[in-house]
């Protein structure tokens, strides 16, 4: 059992932070790696990239958006409650080294995944320009944390309620024109990562994206998370979750992410019915 020692609601309760007891995982985890959580006996295994770890306290932090039955169930867990299962750290860590000036771009809950990577890149001695965005100001989070690990931070909202009125891609375009970037790290909605990869490709700026496809075991056994990278199938769970954005087939990834849409609706509805009863 893995107790929740800290729980915060963000973005009007649409985004939840859980700090969870998991000493073995906390001891090993590096930025970019993920865990799989399962709430109870009947629960789904949900992969989540860690936003932070505290080896001394023996805890890991995940930040997730409530999108369906399983994340609704996660949300219902209070401080002091426990996840039945937590396994990790899984996947390859981010390759953190000094390369010069880097841009870290995060959208929505992708910011949670981006934060430890950004911090790692900063600590490695890079000049870090960060761009984070959300639909509205109240859906934005980790702004101060991101500011603390960036040399420059740009904030965008789709409705203009905070920072730049528009998308992260618009800011990145400017940065690409004004700076000589050695690396772009993009984490967020698949469409955002696709657009960013298309922007950086003609300029030859190396671009790393972090993917979160459907998976079961997280150890290379099911192949559900296979992603076409440079024309070859790679497993996001063991080869990823980070890949060269210029080589990922994002369109196929989007289609594969929608594989269980109708089942997910059914599951959420059944869950709500049970709650209402």
């Amino acid at each position, binding site marked *: 059992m893995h107790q929740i020692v800290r729980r915060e609601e963000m973005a009007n309760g649409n985004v939840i932070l859980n700090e969870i007891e998991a000493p073995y995982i906390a001891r090993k985890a590096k930025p970019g790696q993920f865990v799989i959580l399962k709430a109870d006996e009947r629960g789904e295994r949900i992969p989540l990239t860690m936003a932070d770890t505290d080896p001394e306290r023996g805890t890991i932090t995940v930040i997730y958006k409530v999108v369906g039955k399983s994340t609704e169930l996660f949300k219902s867990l209070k401080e002091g409650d426990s996840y039945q299962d*937590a396994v990790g750290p899984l996947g390859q860590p981010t390759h953190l080294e000094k390369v010069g000036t880097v841009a870290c771009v995060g959208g929505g809950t992708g910011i949670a995944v981006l934060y430890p990577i950004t911090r790692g890149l900063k600590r490695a001695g890079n000049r870090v320009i960060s761009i984070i965005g959300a639909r509205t100001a109240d859906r934005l989070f980790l702004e101060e944390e991101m500011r603390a690990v960036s040399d420059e931070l740009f904030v965008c909202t789709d409705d203009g309620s905070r920072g730049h009125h528009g998308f992260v891609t618009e800011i990145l375009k400017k940065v690409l024109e004004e700076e000589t970037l050695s690396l772009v790290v993009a984490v967020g909605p698949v469409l955002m990562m696709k657009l960013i990869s298309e922007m950086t490709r003609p300029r030859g700026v190396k671009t790393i994206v972090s993917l979160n496809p459907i998976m079961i075991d997280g150890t290379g056994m099911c192949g559900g998370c296979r992603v076409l990278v440079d024309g070859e199938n790679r497993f996001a769970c063991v080869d990823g979750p980070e890949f060269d954005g210029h080589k990922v087939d994002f369109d196929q990834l989007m289609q594969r992410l*929608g594989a269980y849409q109708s089942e997910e609706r059914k599951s959420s509805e059944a869950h709500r019915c049970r709650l209402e009863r």
Partner: protein
Amino acid sequence: MAENEDLAEKEREKNRVAMPEQEPEERRRNFEEVPLGYTPEMAVAEASRCLQCKSPTCIEGCPVEIDIPAFIRLIKEEKFDEAIRKIWEKNRLPAICGRVCPQETQCEGRCLLAKKGRPIAIGNLERFAADSAREKGLKDLSPKPEPSGKRVAIVGSGPAGLTVAADLLARGHQVTIFEALHKPGGVLVYGIPEFRLPKEIVADEVESLEDQGAEIRCNTVIGRTITMDELFEEGYDAIFIGVGAGLPRFMNIPGENLVGILSANEYLTRANLMKAYQFPEYDTPMPKGKNVVVLGAGNVAMDSARTAMRLGADSVRIVYRRSRYEMPARAAEIHHAEEEGVEFLLLTNPTRFLGDDEGRVVGMECIRMELGEPDASGRRRPVPIQGSEFEIPCDLVIIAVGTGANPLLTRSTDGLELNRRGYIVADPETGETSIEGVWAGGDIVTGSATVIEAMGAGRRAARSIHERLTRDLQPSKSVED
């Protein structure tokens, strides 16, 4: 003369006591176990057919060398408790083996009765003995051994790991089993469906190991959560690796990433480990298809096809590039699948998958095959017949064409010698690897094989580990059996 022989054969055939089963019409839509088990009368009647050979050949066919004639004689004498104790001497997981061993190529394949008729139903009798003991709550009551003070880490809780654990516990060693998934049992839990091996049986076997003192740590991926080196640092005196060969193989043909095309590993893990066949009572969704195609013809393919049938498919087709004769599945599984309405499209190979605008699979293009000269496996090589392409509609495709070596642990362990296919190189007699103090066995050494072969490897490794642990300071590599 020939007629007499025919008659005699029919007589023997008739005499083999068939195990009652759920009727195909009923069972093809439920997940309950198909064979229902022998009654004591049936078991005694079947046991009475055993010739009690002086030099029994059946034992040679058993990877763990159960004294088969002895336990069968005890069943015949209605000494059921003694029968199971006789089996336990060699096999701690008989309820499982009685159900999933390929007896026709092992013990039953060597039975003298098979020369003239149907061999004695060794698997059915083993299952009977194990089930009667389970029902009675009979436990292996061998006296607790003197603790040796040695600790062994077992990586993977499948058939190999469970066997090593049982054997080492019986010799007084302390064992910890590390399992990557959230439930112990490995392929017995994620791979083999409920209707073939009820999960309760696996849970019972695991529980009995825990009763004997085994510690089981789930959700622990060796190579990630804890490395092999750290296991030694934690003070384990030996490590056994039995992680299986869990890397799914794909066809590598166009359209394979369309939605609705899954590895059998994924399909069966959803159904068995995650209980997705009970969605939405369980939260993991199960992909459903009206027209299901399963590629491959091994046990995993049969399990997938029969699962799809139970989930309400209109049609389920096994597509296999060779002929019926080469199908690697157990005869009983092929027979069961057929009875349940699974169709077989033999000498057929897919060439590409067809999708709709949303990227979902809607069909498969195939080509007819014919058998040519024998290949390296000794089976006749299937050769495509030019111009024979045809399409079949399908909305769910399950790929069950085998697995490869999962590199997660092996890649993160320095000095572990692998063969060119990525499997661990281990001594076939002892299971010793290139690293001192590390043994390996099961599919991660041999490639995909059977439950009982993994258990046989576990048994041999346990023997070698025990000898090493009790002969501490001897550096000799060779261990006598």
